[in-house]
């Protein structure tokens, strides 16, 4: 039985506004098409500057598209009109950005509770969930700390669970573990998979690290250089639960790695 994809992207294109008197700027993304299924962990790889963040911005409806279509749950999202944008699609799409974007004037706990406060969903259950998530990423004891008192890795973790706490059906992640040291990164990858397993959310995870893409994803899309299109799609059959630390020793790993590597310029 064919279930329609949760998120569908068709011929998405984007170029930035130009100053008058100059030639129109080149396309950042051109005719990009792919779909994401419910409960899927999709990883997207591309060279830097290939518009990965722009793509996520459009999916999250922070940015408008110059052309193309995005459909969520079979409903077209209004991404062509800058004025009609609905960021986060009424909290259906969560977005973990590259910078942690924690509010400096809120403590860790207050930051994690922030989306619940704004959505009016703050109650015993959601508070308990927040506390559980804080424990899950090892931030117990730092609830009353301000962001400037936390290390970069800790801020990243806080930013991650801040999106997880309100349970959006789709979560976009923009190289969330990029700036971290290898230890923390591996730990967080494991934590992420464990948390994802609990709820089987749909995740679109952007990274430049092929190993990470293979370790985490059910499927990996490769973006070409600007103007970005889908250069290739790679199914990842490595069974779950996966051993993140030892992923490279899995028998399917080398072939998968090579085929992805070949497409990433």
């Amino acid at each position: 039985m064919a279930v329609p994809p949760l998120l569908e992207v068709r011929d998405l294109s984007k170029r930035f506004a130009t100053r008058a008197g100059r030639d129109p700027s080149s396309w950042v993304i051109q005719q990009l098409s792919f779909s994401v299924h419910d409960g899927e962990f999709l990883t997207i790889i591309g060279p830097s500057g290939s518009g990965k963040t722009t793509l996520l911005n459009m999916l999250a409806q922070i940015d408008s598209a110059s052309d193309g279509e995005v459909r969520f749950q079979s409903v077209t999202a209004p991404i062509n009109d800058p004025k009609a944008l609905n960021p986060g699609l009424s909290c259906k799409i969560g977005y973990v950005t590259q910078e942690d974007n924690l509010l400096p004037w809120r403590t860790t706990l207050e930051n994690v509770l922030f989306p619940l406060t704004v959505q009016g969903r703050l109650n015993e259950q959601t508070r308990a969930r927040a506390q559980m998530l804080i424990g899950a990423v090892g931030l117990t004891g730092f609830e009353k700390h301000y962001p400037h008192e936390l290390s970069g890795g800790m801020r990243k973790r806080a930013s991650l669970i801040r999106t997880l706490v309100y349970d959006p059906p789709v979560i976009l992640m923009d190289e969330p573990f990029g700036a971290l040291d290898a230890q923390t990164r591996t730990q967080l990858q494991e934590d992420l998979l464990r948390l994802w397993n609990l709820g089987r959310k749909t995740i679109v995870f952007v990274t430049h690290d092929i190993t990470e893409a293979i370790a985490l994803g059910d499927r990996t899309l490769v973006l070409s250089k600007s103007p970005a299109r889908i250069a290739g799609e790679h199914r990842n059959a490595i069974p779950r639960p996966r051993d993140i630390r030892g992923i490279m020793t899995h028998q399917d790993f080398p072939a998968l790695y090579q085929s992805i590597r070949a497409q990433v310029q």
Partner: protein
Amino acid sequence: MATWERVDGRARTRQAGGSLRSRGDQLLALVILLAIWQGLSFVYGTYWVGSPWGVATRLASSVLSGEILRHASYTLIEAVAGFLIGAIPAVGLPFALRRLPIVTAILDPFMVGGYGAPKLALAPLFILWFGIGIESKIALVAITVFFIVYFSALAGVRALDAKLVQMAQVMGANERDVARHIVFPGAVPYIFTGLRIAMPYSIGGAVIAELISANRGLGYLIQLSAMNFDTTGVFAALVATTCIVFMGNCSVDAAERRLLRWRPPPELNMQAGS
């Protein structure tokens, strides 16, 4: 964390070493200054110069009799009331006009003009309008404080981090949420800078207006003592005025420490680098 402890530790040891000696120097300097004053009072007479001892005793008796506290509270009320009446609209206006940059642009030269113009020169006008009572002083303080705080609040509202707003919007924040949770807290440090600058102006403004024309307050007390050739009284009132300014500074500091706990201390910024 370890890096920060190191920074703190280094700063602390640097203080501990030279501190005792410099404190001793400062105490010595104070004694010398007071001695010079006392000496001058012998040479020129307390009539002209007052003396440390005379001023101290006058202050004590004035405090005990309640006289100076009465005048001080009058001045303080003027300063505080004027401060609030001036500062609240000054903070409110940039927020209200946040989404109307054209209006802010239209207002700009008028605000700059108001800021640059000598507000204290309006003192006689306010006395003409409101009489020599408390209202004229409050009005003067309010208009002085308004322009100072307006620009600080404007800077604070403008310093908005767009990324934080986007983040909040993705999480379902509406305009009011953004204003309440993002714009306002971000602007508070800037507003505080303005409040800190405006505070001495509020007390100064009240005193000046009282100097020109009043029947109560520390400025009035100074003027009255001077007209009676009561130098000791003048000094006592001056000391009281300075005390109020000092108290005002302390209040602003205390409020800032509480409300701006979340700010990273300056050294940390340099350490963080990236």
